[in-house]
């Protein structure tokens, strides 16, 4: 198992940290915009979804006629039979934005090799999408299993695991996307050469030759100094 040298790791860490700072800064308007995108996407997925006779609906506070801080969206659970609705706020920043930002920062800090970027992006987006869906699904499951709705039963262990892994542990929402990016690079690295060639146009020979020449010059310099 190869380990990159210290200088490479330090540069990657600094690049990643700078990207994290930029992406996690609460820029004006970002919370409301992301909340609206999150609500629209979730609504698209959950539209007409019903679990145990309870319909799910996610909308922006404005659409729900509420005034809430930025990043919060409104989840409405409606009993299809009785029509009784229960509302609660979901934090789109914790649920989706932070993992997305960490994943993007990792992608910037440890970029994929040239000629494999499209494939890496596709695998990465699929893995991150699965993780985000799990997190959002876990949140919805907890709400459905809550004492006010009781449309679902998770059991004590299931509830504890779901709470701890997806909601309570802030470290998980940072570590998981970072590890997912490394897993993406690993998975793409396992793809056989002939598949990579069809997945993306190979690098131009001129660029490759120029890089080899630069690399050779660098090695010579390293030996003489």
């Amino acid at each position, binding site marked *: *198992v190869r380990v990159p040298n210290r200088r490479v790791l330090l540069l990657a860490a600094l690049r990643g940290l700078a990207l994290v700072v930029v992406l996690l800064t609460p820029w004006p308007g970002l919370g409301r915009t992301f909340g609206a995108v999150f609500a629209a996407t979730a609504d698209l997925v959950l539209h007409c979804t019903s679990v145990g006779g309870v319909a799910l609906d996610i909308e922006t506070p404005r659409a729900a006629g509420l005034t809430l801080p930025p990043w919060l969206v409104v989840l409405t659970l409606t009993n299809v039979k009785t029509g009784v609705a229960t509302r609660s706020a979901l934090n789109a920043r914790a649920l989706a934005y932070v993992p997305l930002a960490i994943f993007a920062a990792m992608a910037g800090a440890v970029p994929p090799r040239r000629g494999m970027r499209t494939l890496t992006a596709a695998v990465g987006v699929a893995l991150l999408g699965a993780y985000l869906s799990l997190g959002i699904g876990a949140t919805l499951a907890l709400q459905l299993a809550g004492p006010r709705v009781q449309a679902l039963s998770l059991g004590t262990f299931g509830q504890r695991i779901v709470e701890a892994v997806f909601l309570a542990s802030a470290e998980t929402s940072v570590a998981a996307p970072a590890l997912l990016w490394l897993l993406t690079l690993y998975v793409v690295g396992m793809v056989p050469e002939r598949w990579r060639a069809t997945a993306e146009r190979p690098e131009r020979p001129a660029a490759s030759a120029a890089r080899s020449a630069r690399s050779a010059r660098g090695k010579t310099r390293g030996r003489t100094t």
Partner: protein
Amino acid sequence: MNRERPAPDASTGTRPPAPLSDERAAQARFVITFAVIAVLGSLAYYYPYPADSTAGAWMASYLQAYVRCAGVVLARLDPSVVVSGLEVHGRFPFRVTRDCDGMQINILFAAAVLGFPASWARRLAGLAGGLVVLASLNLVRLCSLYFVGVYWPGAFDFAHRELWPVLLVLAAFGTFATCAGWLRRDAAVSG
């Protein structure tokens, strides 16, 4: 299938680079071991042990020891701090729960070190050293969060939910990279 391993270089005592298939196999072993240990460790940690069970009592005393350590440090910086059970009382009272001990990071670090191909003695030494570093950093986190709560209460949530998790994850990556470099030397010499 029994494959011959390349012989060590007599002058340096190191082995020549492993063939690509061997390296892939080692990487796959590392990824699988990491995932298995991380999942099993997380399940064992988050299992809702009854309070009167041995594991439950151990968990409670472990958290209390954590809080007492944080209390000792905080009391030196702010004499109003008093520790009672899992609660820290002072100008910004808070309660330490199971998710405040940075255990998720420790589990991931342990999984990475234990899955790394090296001798068990080195792996265990690296694990112990790394866990001491990460636990100390988590103590710094608890203490700093107290003062963030006292002086910048509006920034507490950001520091607690975003800033410190990023720093802890970065520290875990850094500690693992340092540890892996040390373990790698061992693997290169011993094969």
